[in-house]
């Protein structure tokens, strides 16, 4: 039972690394908390739902379409919102409020457009039965989520460490002022990070109907909160940190569900607080958080 719990936690946690990845990138590079993160995920989920129900597009294709589509949408959105925000006295704090408002707007528009009913994509869309690992069955969607997540992490890793833009992103992440001083177009670097971050959130959403069973316009808030847990537990700006955060979250959630199920949600919050206090830089981070 323990072995099953741990392996399930690993798979589930890996999917949550994907869920948190975009938020982490945006916070790391742009230094804003995108509280509408979960709502972008919801929009990605609905896009996949409509693509499947209207045109029978497989989730494996929609994940690419959704990623590209949302990255493109996020580009003008960045220039509409963030430069103005950056001009205020305390952009990091005010971003929480700005993007909370934005999340309300998205949820409202989604409710007007899609209604309040829960929707889902049938499990057969993945064309797989339960997967056997070490003699036990796991849902196919968890395996798929984990694999896609691993691919996304690899993509971000390659971007950050093996491209010029990625190099600049890391420079902005590490020392924003110096990056500005050395003539880096910080706004452009941030816009790219924001676009990728939003695209990743939406891409994670493509698998949400399978992982969560169903989707509805109000689901965003909980996803955002879970993502915050994942990225804080890992550490900011480091995609591998997010993986570690996701895995820690997944395993501990599954552990709690197995042994103390009614307290399952508590652990994530307590863990977040404790990790912030004991190891403020996250499990893999540099120290940047002390007041």
């Amino acid at each position, binding site marked *: 039972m323990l072995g099953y719990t741990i392996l399930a936690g690993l798979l*589930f946690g890996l999917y949550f690394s994907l869920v948190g990845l975009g938020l982490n990138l945006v916070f790391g590079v742009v230094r804003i908390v995108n509280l509408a993160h979960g709502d972008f995920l919801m929009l990605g989920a609905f896009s996949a739902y409509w693509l499947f129900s209207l045109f029978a597009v497989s989730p494996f294709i929609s994940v690419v379409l959704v990623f590209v589509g949302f990255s493109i949408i996020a580009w003008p959105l960045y220039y509409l919102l963030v430069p103005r925000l950056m001009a205020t006295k305390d952009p990091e704090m005010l971003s929480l409020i700005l993007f909370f408002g934005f999340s309300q707007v998205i949820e409202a528009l989604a*409710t007007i457009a899609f209604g*309040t009913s829960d929707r889902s994509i049938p*499990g*057969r869309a993945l064309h797989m039965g339960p997967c056997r690992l070490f003699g036990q069955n796991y849902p196919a969607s968890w395996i798929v989520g984990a694999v896609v997540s691993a691919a996304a992490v690899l993509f971000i890793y390659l971007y950050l460490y093996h491209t010029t833009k990625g190099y600049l992103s890391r420079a902005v992440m590490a020392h924003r002022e110096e990056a500005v001083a050395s003539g880096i177009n910080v706004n452009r670097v941030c816009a790219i990070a924001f676009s990728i971050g939003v695209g990743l959130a939406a891409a994670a959403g493509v698998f949400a109907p399978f992982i*969560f*069973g169903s989707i509805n316009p*109000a689901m965003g808030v909980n996803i955002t909160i879970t993502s915050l847990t994942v990225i804080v537990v890992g550490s900011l700006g480091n995609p591998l940190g997010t993986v570690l955060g996701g895995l820690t979250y997944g395993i501990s959630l599954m552990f709690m569900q197995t042994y103390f*199920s*009614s307290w399952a949600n508590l652990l994530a919050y307590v863990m977040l607080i404790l990790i912030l206090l004991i190891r403020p830089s996250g499990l893999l981070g540099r120290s940047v958080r002390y007041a």
Partner: protein
Amino acid sequence: MAMRKIFFIFFVASLVAVACRAGATEVPKQIKIGTLYASSGTFAPLSMPVHYGLKLWVDRMNAEGGVYIKAYGKRIPIKLISYDDQSNTATAASLYDQLITQDKVNILIADAGSVLTSVALPIAREHKMLLIDPIGIGAPFFTPDSPYIVLIGGPVSTIWCKNIHEFITDEGPKLGIKRVAILYSTNDFTGTQANTIRKAIEKSRTGIKVVYDQGVPTSTTSYTVIINGIKAAKPDAVIELGYPINDISFLRNLRESGVKFKWLFTSYPGMETEHFEKTVGVKGLYYVYTDMPASIMNYKAAFGMSLPEFHAAWNKQYPGGKVGFDFNSVVGYTTGLVLEKALGSAASMDQLALRQAIVGLSGKLKTLDGTFAVDPKTGAQIGETMPIGQILPSGKDGIKLIVVYPKQLATGKLVYPAP
């Protein structure tokens, strides 16, 4: 001094007389019904169908020239005043107050669900307004110390699950069910059911044991390891109690992990069958036991539309599936019908007279929602209990629902253990 006193008494008496006469003859141009709904947030999926069901009734009444009110001896058009509380309780509270104090509604109908109903309770009581409660079934609402609430659309939470534990204790021993697992979401609705079922099984002296008994947060949407834990307890029967999102995730995870239980009950596949066919998939519903609510049972209603007529009217008025047809749609419509019957028999428009009229329908009124029965002391709904059904495969890719319990209502033979 004495003169003054006499004059004063005369004055007051004449005022009262005038007021009474005014009350007796003045027929309002319209009757105001006030209600709330939640178009977004946690309670939206529950609230909107109830609200739309009620609205459908209002529209049909108004098309006929209004609802017949015995106190005035004629039909009077309805003005429905409804506000959106966005699933926020503080907002809901001030909007209930708005309906009573500013809009001065004649009839107050609560939003759906216990949380949004709860805040209306003290307000209705303070203003001596009868709270017509469509489906806020929380047991603590109904006490003998206040007459200002009456539950219309479904049984109070303590007897909501009556047929589940009666099935287990009556039929269980015959089928060979000895070990039961209970999994519930930790909220008022399903938590109360779990408590009731657990107690009933323990009290039954049938030797049936509860071998797994766990709550999970209501926001839970992944059940794979929990299912694995239940499997490890080797139950003969599994009862999963949750909201629709919980049931959907549970059933999908169950199918995806390839685990099979001999006997599995979940509430919502029956209440929202179409929805579950779309989200869980037909195969994931095979052999599941479920509540058989009004939206399937096709009870012969004493008046109003029959179930197929209502379903057709719903699809016509609300096309596009943004708010799906389900049990809660029936609840909303039934709330209107009960009101219609009560207004047609209440001697006056006084709130307590209205309550008396509603309570007077107990046992007599057959609705789409089953036999209506209100406990006159507390206002709790004690009728309308839901039989247990089983979902069986039908044809190549279809399902059919049969009633399996109570015995006298059974329409088919149950399949145990599930293949």
